[in-house]
């Protein structure tokens, strides 16, 4: 009994120390990425190349998902709003839901799964095959050359992808509401224009997606760089990227939404 109690306390202690150590390691890593970023911006083609792999290659999943989410939103929204005779507000419902919440959050979750996992796997495999060590031995800092361009590509891509997700979603809502249900097109767009505020709705959505972009890019690059240099290690790191990113996105969304609604109030 006494032995198992001591063992339990020891395990908790180990986990606490490990968590604190890991938090410190992430902070140190993040600091290094920021301080080593100058080279990435001097050689902007490194970032552009990574934007292609992270951002452009995620376009299909983002646009298609956005379209489907918008169409489902249109069906569900119409079904509910018509009970109150407010089906003409469908455009407002679709735009506000997408721009404020669904756009930034769902596109961030998709981006973490599609691009975040790929970034972690790529950096992790480069570590496992000693490519990062080789680079370091060539007097080329792997954080500046490999990590920073991928980090900034994620940060830049995320708000653009979220905007495209919302655009595709609104178009999906338009297809269902206007083309299938028959709500007047002018009413759909007019009500939307009148209700959506650039400052409080669109800009706040962009801020959210930018914050999510920083979080996903930091988590994905750190997990790759910190991965055990084995097949199992890279696999575990990739899983951690997706899980940690998803939880971080949802937690950050709650905090940001609370802050933004308080500002509006």
């Amino acid at each position: 009994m006494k032995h198992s109690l001591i063992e339990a306390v020891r395990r908790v202690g180990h986990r606490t120390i490990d968590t604190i150590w890991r938090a410190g390691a992430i902070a140190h890593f993040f600091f290094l990425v920021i301080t080593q970023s100058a080279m990435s911006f001097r050689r902007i083609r490194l970032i552009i190349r990574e934007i292609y792999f992270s951002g452009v290659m995620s376009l299909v999943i983002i646009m298609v998902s956005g379209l489907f989410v918008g169409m489902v939103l249109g069906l569900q929204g119409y079904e509910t709003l018509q009970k109150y005779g407010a089906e003409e507000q469908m455009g407002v419902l679709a735009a506000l839901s997408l721009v404020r919440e669904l756009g930034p959050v769902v596109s961030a979750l998709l981006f973490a799964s599609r691009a975040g996992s790929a970034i972690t796997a790529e950096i992790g495999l480069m570590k496992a095959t000693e490519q990062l060590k080789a680079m370091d031995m060539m007097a080329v800092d792997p954080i500046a050359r490999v990590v920073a361009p991928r980090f900034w590509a994620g940060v830049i891509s995320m708000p653009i992808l979220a905007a495209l997700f919302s655009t595709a979603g609104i178009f999906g809502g338009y297809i269902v509401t206007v083309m299938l249900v028959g709500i007047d097109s002018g009413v759909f767009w007019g009500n939307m224009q009148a209700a959506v505020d650039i400052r409080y709705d669109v800009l706040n959505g962009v801020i959210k997606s930018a914050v999510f972009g920083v979080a996903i890019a930091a988590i994905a690059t750190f997990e790759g760089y910190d991965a055990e240099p084995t097949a199992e290690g890279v696999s575990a790191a990739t899983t951690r990227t997706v899980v940690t990113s998803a939880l971080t996105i949802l937690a950050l969304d709650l905090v940001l939404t609370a802050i933004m609604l308080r500002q509006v109030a």
Partner: protein
Amino acid sequence: MLVEIDNVDFAYGPRPILKGISMAVPRGKVVAIMGGSGCGKTTLLRLIGGQLLASKGTVKVNGQDVATLDREAMYAMRRKMSMLFQFGALFTDMSVFDNVAFQMREHTELPEDMIHDLVLMKLNAVGLRGAAKLFPAELSGGMARRVALARAVALDPMLIMYDEPFAGLDPISLAVVGQTIRKLNNALGATSIVVTHDVVESLQIVDYLYFVADGRVIGQGTPDEIRASTEPFIKQFVHSELDGPVAFHYPAAGYAEDLALAPKSA
């Protein structure tokens, strides 16, 4: 001397790897460091390259104590050296050409047409000019090692370190890589350190050999001295004897005891 290792200790956590080891590598020579797996050979290369720091003793390269160098000075030193990793460590997202051109683009302001010519010259030296457009995934193990060799000498380093350059190669590739190491060293006027298990190939291409066991240098000499050595470890290693100072069996409890044929000792 280009590299001087003096009374160096190193441990991975509680596990000691090097125990007061000393060795010296003269300029212009090809020196081999040999020993069994896990004896600390690769650790020695990492200490010379500054990727690890000794817990005791000094490692000097070109007269500079590696442990005292800051990041910039370390990178300045590394620009004059290069390392060939065990499995090449080629950048898999770049072609063979771009792998060899990598350091030229990172560290020099050379125009692209000059880089083009230099890369083809380096690839020609290892016999792979025709493979310039291939990607690492399309190369055999021997070809990848030779590309890594071309990349290692891209900026004509003063010191080239090879970590197990012969591991996993067929006899032809092995001979090609061995001869290329020797020829490149002579052509560039460089100094080479080769960490390897391969006694036969090493004795043909190196000027001097160190034998490392249990974290210490237990024998050294020219290839002729090593061939004639009667020191038990060197004799076992050079003649590939199954048993000797390096036991065939990993330490274990009694065989009969493990098979439950004898009572367990207390």
